[in-house]
């Protein structure tokens, strides 16, 4: 079998990823040009670690977006001759170079890693956003009102936090559980929070101005209901939003595991911000509690929350990898990084054909590293205020 050699692989990788480089350069140049008007995001450019982190995150984002252009092959396609092929081998039949080799089922490792990025970069940020909204919606009243509400909610959050993550996953993400209504019930409850959050957000702000309130509420409810039915019941009337039962299960488990953490952070932030003068001013003006929470406290808690969100996306990526690594939830053929790491980490594979496990492992590590560096830079820059 022909091989393009080490430099051939490097040049091939750079070449295949051209749409990624192009968009990366455009975005970085444009945002550097307008960094002054970008606020906190623009100040990342003052921080070396932040620029590197941002570049890594954008790299994976664009790889996920352009996955079908970047990857030469479908992630599930098997080319029998290429079983455990060395990186850089050329498939004699089609002439396609397997830049990072073939795995034990004769699939292209590079294509799988690229499509894996698409799965990871869809689920991790989306699950983090939902977890953030759940945590905010529950953490605000707990911190603001205190008392009984706080006690009950904190107890529940501590219950979930005291659950070892791995045990939670083994209990929640087994194949059998999809026959029971539990994942759907949990999805039904968790996905309700974003709708409640936005509805209350708009209601408190535009309470006296019906011409602004009703359109916004209508958009929230229609959009929310559409996504809600598509995701929870898999019954989108338009057929655009759909989710596999096992994906829903993973999604719910990840949201459930990470929202108590957000709850705790939000609660702590609220208790701190509540003592400021501008909150007292809002209360004296006679603003409703929810207005004060959503429009006075929340905007002032955004710094730590943004930092936490970017750390949390990384943490969610690690959780997804753990799920894949134990073969929970994701299908056996799924190209996501965790499953690929599991496939590549069997003893024989790891001894002789290291590229199958190493590629997704490096991919996952670099993405999380990028997010952590970005979070670190954001934290440092927001402290300078």
């Amino acid at each position: 079998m022909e091989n393009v050699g080490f430099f051939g692989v490097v040049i091939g990788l750079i070449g295949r990823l051209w749409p990624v480089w192009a968009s990366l350069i455009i975005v970085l140049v444009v945002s550097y040009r307008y960094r002054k008007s970008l606020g906190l995001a623009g100040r990342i450019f003052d921080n070396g670690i932040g620029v590197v982190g941002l570049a890594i995150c954008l790299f994976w984002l664009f790889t996920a977006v352009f996955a079908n252009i970047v990857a030469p092959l479908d992630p599930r396609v098997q080319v029998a001759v290429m079983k455990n092929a060395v990186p850089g081998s050329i498939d004699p039949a089609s002439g396609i170079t397997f830049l990072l080799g073939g795995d034990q089922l004769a699939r292209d490792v590079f294509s799988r890693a690229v499509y894996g990025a698409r799965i990871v970069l869809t689920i991790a940020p989306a699950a983090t956003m939902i977890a953030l909204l759940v945590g905010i919606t529950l953490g605000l009243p707990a911190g603001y009102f205190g008392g009984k509400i706080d006690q009950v909610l904190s107890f529940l959050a501590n219950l979930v936090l005291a659950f070892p993550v791995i045990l939670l996953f083994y209990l929640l993400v087994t194949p059998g559980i999809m026959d029971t209504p539990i994942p759907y019930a949990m999805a039904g409850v968790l996905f309700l929070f974003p709708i409640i959050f936005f509805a209350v957000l708009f209601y408190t702000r535009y309470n006296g101005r019906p011409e602004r309130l009703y359109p916004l509420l209508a958009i929230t409810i229609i959009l929310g209901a559409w996504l809600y039915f598509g995701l929870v019941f898999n019954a989108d009337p338009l057929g655009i939003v759909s989710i596999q039962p096992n994906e829903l299960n993973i999604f719910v488990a990840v949201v459930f595991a990470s929202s108590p953490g957000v709850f705790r952070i939000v609660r702590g932030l609220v208790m701190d911000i509540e003592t400021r003068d501008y909150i007292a001013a809002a209360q004296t003006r006679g603003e409703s509690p929810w207005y004060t929470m959503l429009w006075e406290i929340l905007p002032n808690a955004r710094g730590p929350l943004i930092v936490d969100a970017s750390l949390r996306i990384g943490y969610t990526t690690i959780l997804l990898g753990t799920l894949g690594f134990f073969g929970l939830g994701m299908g056996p053929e799924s190209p996501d990084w965790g499953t690929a790491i599991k496939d590549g980490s069997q003893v024989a594979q790891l001894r002789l054909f290291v590229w199958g496990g190493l590629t997704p492992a490096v991919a996952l590590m670099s993405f999380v590293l990028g997010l952590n560096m970005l979070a670190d830079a954001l934290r440092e820059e927001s402290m300078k205020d």
Partner: protein
Amino acid sequence: MFTFFLRRLGVMLLTMLCLSFVVFFFVNLEPNLRKLATFQTEMRASDQDKENWLQRNGYRDNYLVQFGRWMGVWPKVPVIDPKTGEPVPRFRFCDEPVVPTYSGILEGDFGCSTAFRTPVSQRLPQALKATGLLMFWVMLVMVPVSLTIGVLAGMREGSRTDRTLSVTSIGSTATPEYVSGIILTIIFASWLGWLNGSAATAARRGISLYNFTLPVLTMAIYGTGYIARMTRASMVEVMTQQYIRTARLKGLSFGAVVMKHALRNALIAPFTVIMLQFPWLLTGVVVTESIFNYKGFGWLLVQAASNNDIDLLLSCGLISVLIVLLTQLISDIGYAFLNPRIRVG
């Protein structure tokens, strides 16, 4: 102090009760029971037979009664064979009481493992011992290293040492066990051949540098970064305090200030963090033991979950919850002891 301790203990017991009920509920879900019945009766048994089996062995009783039996606050009734009228155990390989007795977790009866065909109490202690050994070495590596990194980085904020060490610790927090395990195995076992990529021999023939280094390193890497960052943050904060400046102005050397004045106060926060790392280490244990095939608690948990071994999974769940809650309790009490500014009553 005593009432604080009692209150914490009460909350902990309540949490424990709730969590064990949740675990109990999830482990005894209908699909799991059906699988168990299929496995225990012959494969060709009809649905009616399976249903009968479940009914006879008490899996169809009230949830609360079942939970009470498992806890040991409700008597376990022996299963009577309809043909002979003699009491028979649920599973051939475990003894069960022949007269109604209180026999559950509280009495020390952890039930019967269907995957290993032995009482759970036969497997659990040795697995816990193996994991305890692993944890001990991980802590021995992780704690000094991460504290040193954190103190060195936080000593002079913004210096070159600080930058380098901070990037290193960010890198280590981005490396979960299943990534570092693979990379370390590739480098040290496949490529250099210095170390053993499997710790299976460690459980049988005792640990050695050859078979135990990789699992310990794999687990230590992920936690190190986090503790180091917390230590750094705490150290940075302490170094800006007035009393540090006073000590410097008195003419003490920088080293003496760090060692005598800063260190003690800077190490309070990391203590809590280290204790709260235990729940995380539990996940790490499961991953690491699976990668390196080390037959400890994590390995047992994976076996129990993937073989639908109800009693074993329940016991594993109970123990992991107990570990998490105990470490939380210790960290709270230890924090109150270490920090003179916090007074509990």
